[in-house]
């Protein structure tokens, strides 16, 4: 458990846990793929399509949000032009990839059908991701807040009071020990 507050070490540990789990899932799937017990998925083209569509959609979304939130004092020329350009470039690269034969199974091989299929795939994946984040961290919050603890003396203070107070931290620490 963390006692000295080394944030960098803590986040490195957390990143390694996530990476380890991802590798575990990939290995489990890879073993089955090597055994040839899957249909032809075309994982490489799925990866390229998902990356290009995700880049295009996120850039486009940020562009629209930038336009909606712009006002006369905001200088958003770089953001607006940059994200619009990124959206166009993403769409162009996607079209180029499909035209050069990098297609996925499950839809016609024209650009729009491939884009629609890829976009639906990543939208469902993203929805699943947000659902699991909300569910898991919701449960964690329920568990964490379920523990009874001694009342915090700071909670009795009013936020509108400007009186200077002193909290006897040393004696509190002693009593906790």
């Amino acid at each position, binding site marked *: 458990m*963390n006692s000295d507050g080394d944030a960098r070490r803590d986040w490195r540990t957390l990143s390694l846990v996530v990476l380890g789990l991802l590798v575990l899932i990939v290995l489990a799937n890879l073993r089955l793929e090597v055994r040839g017990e899957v249909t032809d998925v075309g994982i*490489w083209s799925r990866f390229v399509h998902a990356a290009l569509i995700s880049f295009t959609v996120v850039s486009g979304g940020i562009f629209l949000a930038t336009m909606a939130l712009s006002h006369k004092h905001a200088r958003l020329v770089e953001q607006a032009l940059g994200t619009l350009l990124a959206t166009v470039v993403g769409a162009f690269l996607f079209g180029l990839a499909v035209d050069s034969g990098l297609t996925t199974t499950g839809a016609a091989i024209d650009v729009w059908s491939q884009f629609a299929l890829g976009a639906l795939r990543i939208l469902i994946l993203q929805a699943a991701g947000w659902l699991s984040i909300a569910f898991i961290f919701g449960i964690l919050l*329920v568990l964490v807040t379920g523990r009874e603890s001694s009342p915090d003396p700071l909670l009795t203070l009013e936020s509108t009071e400007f009186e200077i107070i002193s909290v006897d931290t040393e004696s509190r620490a002693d009593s906790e020990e």
Partner: protein
Amino acid sequence: MGPEQDLLLHFWLPLAATPLALALMIAKDSPRRWAGRLLGITIFVALVMQPNALATSLEGWSLNLIFSIFGPTLLAGAGILIALFSGPIPVAPLPRDLRPVGLVMILLSVGWFMFMLFENRPFLDGLENPWWRHLVTSLLTTSVIVSGFAAAFAYVMGDERLRESTIMAASSLSAFGILIYLLAEGTVSDDPVFWRSASWGVLGDLAGLLVGGFAALGLFIMLVWIGEKNQPIPGPVEPLSEEERARVNEILQKHVPEEVSK
């Protein structure tokens, strides 16, 4: 209009306008907020009023999928909120007796999802939803990662959170176990080969989603940085007017009189 134009008008256009509606809804000025709400309602109406049967397109099937998982999702969300706000926290508007009800609702939602997974997968007009395996494998894969992260997070960042970490680790292992079971044994309606293909494909999509999404966010951060760098140096600030000076003095006198009298 043909089915493709219908899909454009009732699915893709509303979907593309969603970021605009969300951004308008959180804008500071009232007219934009109202425009955002109006756009949000229009999007909802356009999505709900599909002119064609849902089973005739992949877009329609994706809407059917959302309707199918709406029940367990709502039950889980309500259960979490009830359990949270009836617990021993400073802001708890609900009675303590309701906490077990919330926890039972969460368990029921998981049971409902399991029933759908193993016994009754979503279908429409006698056809099985083609997105179901994609959703399940996505949900299980992300659950393994998110639960594992939550377990490590609670243990590393928290103070004596062994119980919470253990529950989160168990949840991660359970999700992994279910995923492996599906890959090895399948379900009544789906052969394991299809589950393997779905899981393998999801990994490609997930990696692409992360790479593309973070690349776009990184680019946006870079653009903001360039924009900030190009801002002109601000000119000298106007001194306070008499009225502003009097107001500042009044506030200082009220809260730190000893500092003002120095």
